[in-house]
């Protein structure tokens, strides 16, 4: 899970889609939120 921060924005976006998490573009100001939501979903 800690590898999330090493993933590209595109990879994060694909993971969000895989986990069915609604999201907008992955940019500097939104990435932290989406990584947190992915960690919660993966847990």
């Amino acid at each position, binding site marked *: 899970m800690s590898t999330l921060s090493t993933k590209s924005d595109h990879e994060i976006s694909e993971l969000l889609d895989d986990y069915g998490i609604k*999201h*907008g573009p992955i940019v500097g100001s*939104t990435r*932290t*939120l989406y990584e947190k939501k992915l960690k919660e979903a993966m847990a």
Partner: protein
Amino acid sequence: TSQKHRDFVAEPMAEKPVTALAGIGDVLGKKLEELGFDKAYVVLGQFLVLKKDVELFTEWLKDICGANSRQAAS
């Protein structure tokens, strides 16, 4: 809506400080300013980049500055 919100929407946002937003008091305002969200339009930008999704925006606001549900909802 609160008087604060009515005052806010009554005129163009322009360079209003983040504390002009309903629900954002001095403590939250200070935290947001430290994070670079010093103007109301920057917070608006974040809302738009979150696709105007209130749930996502509320969660984001809670995460970055510890806003509670009521403040975030405002």
